[in-house]
């Protein structure tokens, strides 16, 4: 027959399982990373220092953590515009709690826990709109995008909440072995979610839904439940990102916490090679995407490039990176 089955190719076995480095497009973002590292080494003064590493990791952690959630959402074929607003809500809640609860331990515990719960609730709302009401994800999450920051502002009447709280600040400012705590947290989440996507039923369900929702439904995948869960996870991760930002700044400003993070996270996911059409989740690719963005930032600011030029450069990099990744496909 006309179909010529591909013969058993032992070479392709070497590619291994759907591991961290498997499949197309990965090399593109890796090359970009290396190139940017080189550029930074040559042009950015004092780039090759241990401290620089720590600072870069710290600066990218919160966005990367949010972007991990975004990766999952995008893998189901959705998108979440509300993450920045969720960060603001969570970030505002934390100081509200530990500043107003007398018992410091209880205050801190609640300040770490309740905002994550609030993030989960936001995610549940998004997931409900997407999975049950069947709204388009863009419009569904636009609602919380709009209202969420307002809610955060209402909570403190718009004011920032500067604070000193050693326990809470450890999340954003603490360091272990010379590297920031939040970088470990980011690494942990990256590993957990990479394994999670590969090793669990849930991870497979996500990719199956994004790849072909109807086929997944007919194969017994709980489509609506998985979708909701993904938005909830993203909500929690966004809340965590918000806590980190607030902790780092020793201040929670409802108007600026998480501003524009949704776009940065989506860009990181796209640059990392996850298709915006869904069906695949490259958690580690997202890390590379975020790293690329971070290295560009360091390069531009470290070399005194004005904001205006930086924006144009950023735009070009996004276009080129994504183009290189989709090209080998067709």
């Amino acid at each position, binding site marked *: 027959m006309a179909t010529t089955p591909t013969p058993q190719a032992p070479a392709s076995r070497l590619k291994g399982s759907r591991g961290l480095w498997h499949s197309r497009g990965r090399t593109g973002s890796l090359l970009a990373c290396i190139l940017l590292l080189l550029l930074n080494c040559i042009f950015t003064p004092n780039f090759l220092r241990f401290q620089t590493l720590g600072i870069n990791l710290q600066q990218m952690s919160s966005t990367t953590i949010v972007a991990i959630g975004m990766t999952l959402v995008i893998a189901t074929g959705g998108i979440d515009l509300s993450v920045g607003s969720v960060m603001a809500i969570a970030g505002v809640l934390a100081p509200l709690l530990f500043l107003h609860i007398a018992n410091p331990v209880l205050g801190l515990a609640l300040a770490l826990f309740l905002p994550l719960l609030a993030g989960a609730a936001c995610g549940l709302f998004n997931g409900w709109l997407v999975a049950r009401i069947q709204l388009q994800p863009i419009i569904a999450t636009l*609602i919380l995008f*709009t*209202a969420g920051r307002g809610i955060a*502002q209402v909570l403190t009447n718009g004011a920032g909440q500067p604070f000193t709280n050693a326990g809470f600040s450890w999340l954003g400012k603490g360091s272990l072995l010379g590297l920031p705590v939040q970088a470990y947290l980011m690494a942990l989440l990256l590993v957990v979610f990479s394994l999670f996507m590969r090793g669990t039923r849930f991870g497979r369900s996500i990719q199956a839904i994004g790849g072909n929702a109807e086929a997944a439904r007919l194969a017994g995948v709980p489509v609506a439940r998985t979708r909701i869960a993904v938005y909830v996870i993203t909500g929690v991760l966004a809340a965590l990102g918000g806590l980190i930002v607030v902790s780092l700044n020793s201040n929670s400003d409802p108007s600026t916490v998480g501003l524009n993070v949704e776009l940065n996270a989506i860009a990181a996911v796209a640059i990392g090679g996850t298709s915006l059409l869904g069906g695949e989740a490259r958690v580690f690719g997202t890390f590379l995407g975020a790293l690329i963005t971070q290295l560009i930032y360091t390069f531009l600011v470290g070399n005194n490039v004005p*904001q205006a030029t930086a924006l144009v450069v*950023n735009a070009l990099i996004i276009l080129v990176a994504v183009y290189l990744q989709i090209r080998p496909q067709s």
Partner: protein
Amino acid sequence: MLSQQGPLLIFVLLFLFASFRYTYFLSTYNMISFFSYNTIFGLLALGETFVIMTGNIDISVGSVAALSAVVATRFSGAGLVPALGMALLVGLLIGLLNGWAVARLRIPPFIVTLATLIGVRGMALIISGAATLSTSGNDFPAIYSGTLLGIPVPILLLVVAFVLGSILLHYTRFGRHALAIGGNEEAARLMGLPVVRIKLLVYVISGILASLAGVLLAAQTYTGNPNEAVGWELNAIAAVIVGGTLLTGGKGTLFGSLVGALLLGLILNVLNFENGYGLISLSSYWETVIRGAFLLVVVLLQTRLAGQKKLRAMVLSPAPKAPPV
């Protein structure tokens, strides 16, 4: 269809409510300033409708409006026509760029226009020298504040854009083909429709209308502010969806988008009046919450009314994927 009348109904109800509640709501002055101001969002929504109709999206319109405002301001000394011309040229070029990257390079539209959203903002800062420019020349603001035959120019522009857009959509091949592409791109290709050209064109329309909105913005405020128009793209998209256009493409009404844009604007106007009414003086933060809640209500209502679930299921069942070759 109810899906189109739902938002209109809400608009009319809210309008009536405001007319009875606030003494000066129906004053000529408020009506003219309300409609003039919302012309800007109406234009953005009209352009966005064309893009969404083909199953694509354009999130760069806010940045394009800002850049056009800056460019128009730069050229305003030379008079209205050169300023308008240069600004529209900018919109056209960015539209071409967007369309080219989407149709030819096949980069997902969200990413393409995300890149232009960022880059065009940078261009606006570069061209303005990172400062807020001030318009010069006397005739330039007339495009926002002037009148023609007793009608304010922006309202006239919106009506003209709407009528031209409707004609384009209903009475030209381009319009019908754009809808066909949104409905089933593979079928459209097999029917011999010039898919790439049509996609280019919808992005160009969106770019030009965004530019026109930018020019109005510059004329309204006498400034070219590179930091203006942030987030307007989401406003435009919301207006289009509220207006009943399918985000998946294939079905769209310009009238709906217009109503959607005006409805979102009306909420703000009503909130401003409510603040002056004195009973509840809402902090401005509540405004965003209320806007979000309102969006939720409208979208939910519209989904119910139109039974979109069913429609979507029917439309999406033959899910045409991108053609091979």
